[in-house]
């Protein structure tokens, strides 16, 4: 009784709002993936909200479906810490390094924001890859979810672009010379390579103009791309729902609160891991960037940069051409395997491609762990 009294008390305005507004207004939370499943536009707001939140997921949905959520959670952490970093960071050759020194040593918990941002950037690529692995394993990239899958691959590429554009910003020797190396490697791609490399480096060498362009890409251009791709990704998941898997069918638990609680647990674990990594393994400051001194050794910092640098180091262009080609091949998977078996043993092409992709990632990771060789100055 008391519960219903409370409801009566608070809900007068809400009730009016619910009746006066229809589900179309929910397009905004839907954009950010906060609602589940398709909803009829003309339902009253409250009903639409409940219908959406309470929608039951297929019975096959379990813990393995939490990695997409973890990736999303890490993206949000990155946006939040990124905005906080931008309050203090100054994107110029003179001020970038000291502004981070100031953030690290003078601002309360400035160090935490910086290192959580650094580690979240590593973890987000890892969870995205695990999410990708789950999708390939369960075969849910096939029709009608081809576009969702394509958006997913593009999101992975966007995350890698975030990592590479953010890597230069600390403006220390490691950032500077790894970026120099990366731009030299980028220039090796035929036709567009030189053009792209020039577009981002602007100058003959990595300079203040390069820093400006990397910063703008990192904080203006890429966030819009991410937002666009993420909202498309979510819209499509809402439209198609989570795929039924082979033998496990029928309705399972509702999205809220059952699956949300799962996501909460995963988010808590992610957060605790992030804080621990940030406190125990902070990204150290290298010496300030110096275009006239090639550092004696050039460590690659962070899991995605290790992979990218390692891939570039592989002989015969295995990594340089193999990685993008495999990503394109993976993106094209739904075209090849539009119908057919969902059990992964009956999809040799998809699994073979994915195994090759994983193998290349592993080999690149190992190559990246080796001692860093500074780039030859001016050599392409």
């Amino acid at each position, binding site marked *: 009784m008391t519960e219903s009294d409370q409801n009566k008390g608070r809900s007068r305005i809400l009730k009016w709002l619910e009746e006066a507004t229809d589900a179309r207004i929910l397009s905004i939370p839907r954009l950010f993936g906060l609602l589940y499943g398709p909803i009829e536009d003309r339902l009253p707001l409250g009903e639409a909200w409940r219908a959406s939140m309470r929608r039951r997921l297929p019975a096959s949905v*379990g813990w393995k479906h939490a990695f997409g959520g973890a990736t999303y959670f890490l993206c949000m952490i990155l946006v939040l810490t990124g905005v906080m970093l931008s309050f203090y960071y100054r994107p110029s050759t003179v001020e970038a390094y000291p502004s981070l*020194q100031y953030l*690290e040593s003078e601002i309360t918990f400035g*160090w935490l924001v910086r290192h959580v941002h650094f580690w979240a950037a590593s973890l987000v690529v890892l969870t995205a890859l695990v999410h990708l692995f789950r999708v390939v394993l369960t075969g849910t990239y096939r029709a009608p979810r081809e576009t969702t899958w394509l958006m997913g691959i593009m999101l992975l590429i966007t995350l890698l672009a975030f990592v590479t554009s953010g890597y230069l910003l600390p403006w220390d020797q490691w950032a500077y010379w790894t970026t120099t190396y990366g731009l030299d490697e980028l220039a090796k791609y035929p036709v567009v390579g030189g053009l792209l490399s020039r577009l981002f480096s602007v100058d003959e060498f990595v300079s203040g103009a390069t820093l400006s362009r990397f910063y703008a890409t990192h904080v203006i251009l890429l966030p819009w791309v991410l937002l666009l791709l993420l909202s498309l990704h979510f819209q499509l998941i809402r439209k198609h729902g989570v795929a039924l898997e082979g033998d496990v069918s029928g309705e399972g638990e509702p999205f809220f*609160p059952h699956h949300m*609680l799962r996501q*909460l647990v995963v988010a*808590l674990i992610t*957060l605790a891991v992030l804080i621990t990594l940030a406190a125990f393994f902070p990204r150290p*400051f290298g010496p300030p960037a110096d275009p006239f001194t090639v550092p004696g050794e050039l460590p690659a910092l962070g899991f995605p940069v290790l992979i990218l640098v390692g891939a570039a180091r592989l002989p015969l262009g295995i990594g340089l051409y193999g990685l993008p080609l495999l990503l394109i091949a993976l993106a094209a998977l739904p075209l090849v395997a539009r119908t057919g078996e969902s059990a992964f043993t009956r999809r040799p092409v998809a699994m073979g491609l994915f195994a090759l992709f994983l193998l290349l990632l592993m080999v690149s990771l190992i190559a990246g762990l080796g001692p860093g060789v500074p780039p030859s100055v001016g050599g392409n």
Partner: protein
Amino acid sequence: MRSVLVSSIAVLSWVTPALSQETMAGFLQEEYSCIMCHTDMRTGFLQGVHSGRGILCTDCHGGDPSQFEADAAHTEGFVGSMSKTEAVDLCLSCHGDLPQMRQFALEPVTEEEFLFSRHGRALLEDRNLLAPSCGDCHGSHAILPRTDPRSPVHPARIPETCSSCHSDPTRVPEGLPTDQLEQWQESAHGVALMAGHNERAANCASCHGSHSALPPGVLEIPNVCGKCHQLVRETYFRGPHGQAGPSSSGGIPCTACHANHETTMPPLSEIGSVCVSCHEEGSSAGVAGLELQEQVLRAQAAGSRARDALHILAEAGETIDDEEVRFLTVETHLRELLVQAHALEPEALDDLVRRISSLSTEIGERADVVEEHRWERQLLAIPAWVLLVFGILLALRKRRKLVAPVEDSSVGQGEGTES
């Protein structure tokens, strides 16, 4: 017709650069015919320092350059290849003449100077033709200034030039060692010059002289080394070795501890053992040597502690302007300490060691604070994990409550195995 034109253009275009080079060097083909036959000497001579200063073949060799026939050209006091002693006289006729040398900012070389060297005495007095003449070091036709890296008397090439005779036992007097080049290459001087490309590092001529080349005498050595190591020289003369002078058995020169060709700094941890190679162990000098070693090692350890602390501060993103200045002072003091150590008085170093230690401690204290902060940061992991465990427990409990009454047991078990 056309083919003749083409071929003549081809021939002309091949010949022209050579002709223009000669004209530029001040030669006119009609007046100067030596190089028409002696093509093998032409290129070297044209690159040399003399051709650009109006000195021609005839100035050294005589003859009539306007004649194209060999017999007619080789008249009028023509001298062909000359002996080593004749060459010395010929070179000195200009290079010993101050008014002629002044304009080129060259020091005149006199016969007296050359005679002072063992080379000069062997050649001019003993008529030993194995001894070098001017051309053996400077070249004969392609004579280049010593600033030219191609010149055999360029600082970086002198060791090689000297050793072309001195590493050959058949060309040096009996009993003279022939492994100086190898020793020098291992020395601090050799490494600085050859690997570090420091042309001011000592080569053979820096210590032995060039035209008056002779090993320096024992009592001259501190002054010879002191030409570059000026502060060390001053300190050395304040100490017991420098004070000993000629009174003891010839003096104790720099080379007593540092060797002559294989000149290196003895490892700082072996200073004591260098001392007892002459002094008796336990003697006052031996004990002083050990004390000296201890002082230097203590200062060096303080210096490396300061470097480590600076590294910790830099990696942690601290602003280290003050600490960098302190560290520069530490490095300056360390250099000063190594200079002052040549006075061989351990007590004289006390002040410097104390200053190095105190600066190092100042840097170290800040690094300690940063290390402590790092530890405090790591404590943050505790609330993070406590929160995590509580959060997970709460969420799982809520889930179990939600799942139990609504779903049948099979779904619940399925969830359990998956998690």
